[in-house]
């Protein structure tokens, strides 16, 4: 047995309990990685709430004073199957508990970059313009700077023996890799797929690639067949492939589904060669300007992946146009299960109405361009005043841009016309009473809030980014350049208010786009056959 230092009396029972739980978790991880070896674990008290700074030394430790720093908690020996066998030394910190402030706020308030602070203060839209130009330059260079060729994957020669699939008495399982468990579109799909996997009859193992507080961990189903393994905290990146191979074998994992987890992509050679019976699926959402983002990474790994699940046709075309891949790209929209009886309400906006309610719903990050939103509202307010229209706006969302946006709205004299709502407000009710939804985003996959807007009789207007043109008619799409976004948006709103034919055409086009999207397979429909196949529950409802 291992020896544990006595817990000081002054430590609270909760802290002690947490320490023990974390130690158990660490031992659990390293026992999978080193099933038979003797483990010598050196524990430290972490000074950040996120990451355990793990490092591994394969052999006995040669201790130095640095190993016995003021944060040194103690040492644990976990014997393997042979006391005289190899020793693995692990150095790892136990992250401290996050403060309530850290839990509440994921990122600090946004500030303009220092050299351009004065420019932002004088003309926020010019600041946005510079940022836009910098990003477009990165986009132009992306093709040169980043690889757009799928890595080759040789399956080897049939003359050599294939890897035998081990027998397992455990129920089939799935490994779901997330970028992190924080709020986001990919994470929503990740959480949904956990529920679908359980529904298919799979046990679920969840890992996250990016160390964070993993605030959505509390949303994971509280069931014994769902396990969240904190590799993000306690396992060095370069050990993920070996760890995952061992986990797959130990837990009878049949499917690996990657939702933007970089380490899981890096583990694919290990998975394909050591456990070739495992089906690999990934889901992708947004092509990033600077480097292509996860769709590019996915394309580079394409030969190692059985199924590419995409949420838009734009992404399917991305795989075709950059990686020549057609055969295993599966479209599955992030929509609720199909309801053929659903009847859309009429879109509420009418020409020449006396009041206009505009909404924005989104996280307060640069991606949504809150500063551009404020400039649009300023422009619209000016137009509405001249046209004698009572224009009101509601902005829903939280994040690092909330404070600067509030400040800017105050500066522009708009706070009496704009209501700020928290992220958990009643969005359907808001859309019901809104005429227009604005989405001046810098980038999107396919923003479902636009789809929801149509379902609530609200007209979405969005920048022409990502796959937005799959739900937004051409006449309601905005150019990306910030100043053009503002001027075009004002023009569109003015025309919708003034030109009845134009308004009617847009209403019809929105309903048609909504119907087209609704006719496509949903993500659940695209993924469930693979989950059921892995669970051996095909055809069981």
């Amino acid at each position: 047995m291992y020896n544990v230092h006595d817990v000081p009396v002054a430590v609270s029972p909760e802290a002690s309990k947490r320490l023990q739980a974390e130690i158990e978790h660490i031992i659990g991880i390293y026992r999978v990685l080193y099933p038979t070896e003797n483990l010598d674990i050196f524990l430290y008290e972490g000074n950040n709430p996120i990451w355990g700074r793990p490092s591994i030394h394969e052999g006995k430790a040669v201790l130095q004073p640095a190993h016995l720093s003021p944060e040194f908690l103690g040492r644990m020996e976990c014997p393997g199957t042979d006391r005289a066998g190899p020793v693995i030394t692990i150095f790892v910190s136990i992250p401290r508990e996050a403060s309530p402030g850290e839990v509440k706020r994921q990122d600090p308030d946004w500030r303009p970059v220092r050299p351009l602070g004065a420019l932002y203060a004088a003309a926020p839209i010019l600041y946005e313009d510079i940022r836009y130009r910098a990003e477009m330059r990165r986009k132009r260079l992306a093709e040169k700077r980043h690889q757009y060729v799928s890595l080759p994957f040789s399956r080897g020669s049939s003359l050599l023996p294939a890897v035998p699939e081990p027998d397992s008495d455990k129920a089939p399982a799935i490994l779901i890799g997330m970028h992190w468990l924080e709020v986001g579109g990919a994470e929503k799909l990740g959480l949904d797929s956990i529920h679908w996997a359980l529904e298919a009859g799979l046990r679920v193992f969840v890992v996250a690639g990016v160390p964070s507080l993993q605030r959505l961990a509390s949303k994971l189903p509280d069931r014994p067949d769902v396990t969240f393994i904190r590799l993000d905290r306690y396992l060095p990146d370069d050990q993920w492939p070996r760890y995952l191979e061992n986990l797959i074998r130990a837990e009878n994992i049949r499917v690996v589904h990657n939702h933007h987890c970089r380490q899981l992509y890096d583990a694919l050679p290990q998975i394909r060669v050591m456990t070739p019976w495992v089906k690999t699926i990934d889901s992708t959402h947004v092509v990033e300007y600077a480097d292509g983002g996860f769709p590019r990474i996915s394309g580079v790994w394409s030969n190692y992946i059985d199924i590419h699940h995409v949420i838009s046709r734009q992404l399917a075309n991305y795989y075709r146009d950059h990686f020549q891949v057609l055969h295993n790209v599966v479209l599955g929209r992030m929509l609720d299960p199909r309801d053929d009886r659903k009847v859309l309400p009429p879109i509420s906006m009418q020409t020449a109405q006396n009041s206009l309610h505009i909404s924005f719903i989104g996280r307060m990050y640069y991606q949504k361009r809150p500063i551009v939103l404020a400039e649009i509202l300023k422009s619209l307010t000016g137009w509405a005043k001249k046209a004698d229209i009572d224009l009101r706006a509601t902005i829903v969302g939280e994040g690092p841009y909330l404070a600067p946006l509030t400040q800017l709205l105050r500066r522009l004299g708009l706070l009496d016309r704009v209501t700020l709502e928290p992220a958990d407000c009643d969005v359907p009710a808001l859309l019901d009473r809104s005429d227009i939804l604005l989405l001046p985003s810098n980038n999107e996959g396919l923003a479902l809030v636009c789809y929801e807007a149509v379902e609530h009789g609200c007209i979405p207007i969005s920048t022409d980014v990502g796959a937005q043109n799959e739900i937004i008619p051409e006449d309601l799409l905005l150019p990306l350049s910030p100043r053009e976004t503002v001027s075009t948006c004002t023009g569109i709103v003015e025309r919708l208010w003034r030109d009845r034919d134009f308004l009617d055409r847009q209403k019809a086009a929105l309903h048609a786009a909504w119907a087209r999207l609704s006719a496509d397979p949903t993500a659940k429909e695209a993924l469930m056959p693979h989950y059921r196949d892995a669970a051996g529950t095909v055809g069981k409802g």
Partner: protein
Amino acid sequence: MALLNKIAAVIVTFNRSAKLMKVLDALQRQTLAPEIILVVDNASTDDTMALVEARAKEMPSIRYLRLPKNIGGAGGFHEGIKAAYEQGANYFWISDDDAYPEPDAIRKLLDALHEFESNHQWRPSFACSRVEWIDGGLCEMNTPRAVWDWARFLRPEKPWALVDSCSFVSVLIPRWAVQEHGLPIADYFIWFDDAEYTRRLSKSYPGIFCPESRVIHDTPDNRGVNFGLIDEKSLWKFKYGARNETSFRRREQGLPGVMAYAYGVHQQMKRGDVSWKLRGQIFRAILRGVAFRPRIVKV
């Protein structure tokens, strides 16, 4: 003997979707199916993309490389072999979008390469099929060129003649040859890219002509490459051919080679009674070819 047999079929196409589908049909029937079928689309304006996308649902080996503009057959084969090489293919089966291989065509090419290596220790740099026209006769434009000792290993049961040149219609090229000699010259655009490339490969060791591997070339007519056949309609192709072969001769044989080539072209045009106006254009293309020195891209 090579142990790894991952074959990538590289088909270059331009606005011939119906014939391309027949090529894919023929590939689907192969007894040795390529692991990758790379369709290189030279920016077709017909329904090629839609048909290939639909076909890929039932043929998972299909990959689709759409080029932003038409860069000719030479450019298409350059890009296609490069992409297939990057995908890790051990052999490249190169062909046109209007050539239908018999079900055992690819297997017989691979078997021939393997057996030749086993029996004679030499590594042929390619193996090419017998290309037949739709009437079953030899397709004139796809006749391989034999080397002087073409019959060295030819046996009644294994009639593999040594050749140093063939067309890009059903030719199987091993990875080592591409690694050693690089890619076809994209700047040729069209004509002579295949002859130049296979002659370049042959510098390691000639290829083999495998008549037991057959492919049907569905061309509108069965005409060979002869400058006596030039007319206004075909002039543009002959100009590319003249420029490209001149460039090749200049590179490999120097000015005497160019002179000999120009004389041969002149004789063909004379015999064919080609108008002086057209002859003048061909000679100008030959002059351009003297200065045309496209780069050979290595992988």
